């Protein structure tokens, strides 16, 4: 998933010259940042809140970002680590200073695998993807999914099975 540093440089220079191009930074990195904070919080609402804070802080800081060859992802991970530290501090008033640590190589590998899984979901046939989204994101029951898709519950379970079998195939044993 690593992006070339030249791509990074062009991306940042474009966003500095024209704030409207910040959306390209967001597009490229939202999944990585989301995967990172989601692994650290294990909570969907918090992951969404912190992810949006990270990109807000990045947008505000992009004008002062000095290109020194450091990947944009490393910069965003640092902002995310601080946002996570703030999050944990707010939840534990008496806690000591929460560590603001960026992901190490092992965690980066896990994040890359998570992103590969997200991409595999996006490539699933339409109905299978819809079932995965409704089950795991919207947390709908099989009955509710069946009602939305106008299928039998048995058919939805089959779609869910096919989707997970396909994901297993495309992930080649990772996941």
């Amino acid at each position, binding site marked *: 998933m690593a992006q070339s540093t030249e791509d990074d440089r062009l991306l940042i220079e474009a966003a500095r010259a024209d704030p409207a*191009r910040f*959306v390209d930074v967001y597009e490229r990195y939202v999944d990585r940042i*989301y995967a990172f904070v*989601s692994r650290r919080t294990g909570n969907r609402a918090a992951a969404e809140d912190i992810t949006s804070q990270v990109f807000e802080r990045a947008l505000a800081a992009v004008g*002062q970002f000095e290109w020194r060859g450091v990947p944009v992802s490393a910069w965003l991970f640092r902002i995310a680590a601080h946002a996570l530290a703030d999050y944990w501090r707010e939840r534990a008033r008496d806690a000591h200073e929460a560590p603001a640590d960026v992901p190490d190589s092992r965690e980066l590998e896990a994040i890359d695998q998570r992103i590969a899984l997200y991409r595999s979901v996006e490539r699933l046939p339409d109905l299978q993807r819809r079932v*995965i989204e409704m*089950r795991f994101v919207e947390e709908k*029951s099989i009955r509710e999914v069946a009602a939305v898709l106008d299928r039998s519950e048995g058919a939805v379970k089959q779609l*869910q099975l096919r989707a997970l079998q396909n994901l297993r195939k495309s992930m080649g044993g990772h996941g």
Partner: protein
Amino acid sequence: MAERDLADRLDEIVDAVIARGDATAALRDPELAPMARLAAALRDYPSPEFKATLRLQFQRRTTMTAVTMTAVREGFTTVTPYIRVREAGLADFLVRVFDAQETFSGRGGDGGMHREVRVGDSMIMIGEGGAGRTGIMPIRPVACHVFVKDVDATFARALAAGAASLGEPEDRHYGERAGFVADPFGNRWYIATPTRPDSLASALRTVTPVLHSRDASAYLTFLERALGAVVELRTDVDGPLRYARLRIGDAAIEVSEGDPMPGSFMLYVNDPDERYGHALAAGASSVMALADQPYGRVGGVQDVAGNQWFFSRPAPARS
């Protein structure tokens, strides 16, 4: 095993994963274990709706910023505090403490002096003297957040220039080393040096007005409607609002819970008539009817917290 059974058993595992994040029951089953692991990972699958909404927000905000910036007076940003003091001395204090540069000085409309100073990348307007007249803008202290290179040295200069300490410089958890003073006129200066690359400094200019409010959450809604401010950061995910940062064009204001210290602010906008109308509709009252002045079209309102906003479209620069 029949495929129907497999689909049923997998569904039980998915239910357990969704409800409890627990896929352990399946891990001993060689046929289902790999899919159970995938199901556990899918709990983190980002909501496509969330991503699309956030993308749209950034798209709108960055486009809006570009549009709003067009009407700003040269050398200024969208928001400029206008501080009135009873007698001369504030501009000199800012020069001495913050290394401010005076860019303009002339007779003001209230009989006193109108002065403009630059502090870093920000401007401050000052009305000095003219105490005998009422004027539209009351004489009252305001609060500003100021970023400096060395908070300890600036803090010491402030005390030497007659300020009173409201809090010694200390490392704060929000990524700043900060100390607080009240100048001889009662204005509060929250002086800070960033200690982290993503501190608030990265989102703020050198000087940012801080508005204190007793019901900050309701006040934010007003600022959004009246000023077209965009809330960028708020700290009330699961509690009362303690702090918020709002963007207005190319500048920001900060709102924090506390005893109100209302001030007066110049706001450069593309369409003062439209903004004035929005502010009145949102509950503000007029303090200065819209009119064409030599320096541009301007109208002023006072909001529910007592802050005054003067919407202005600067006159075209004469060359």
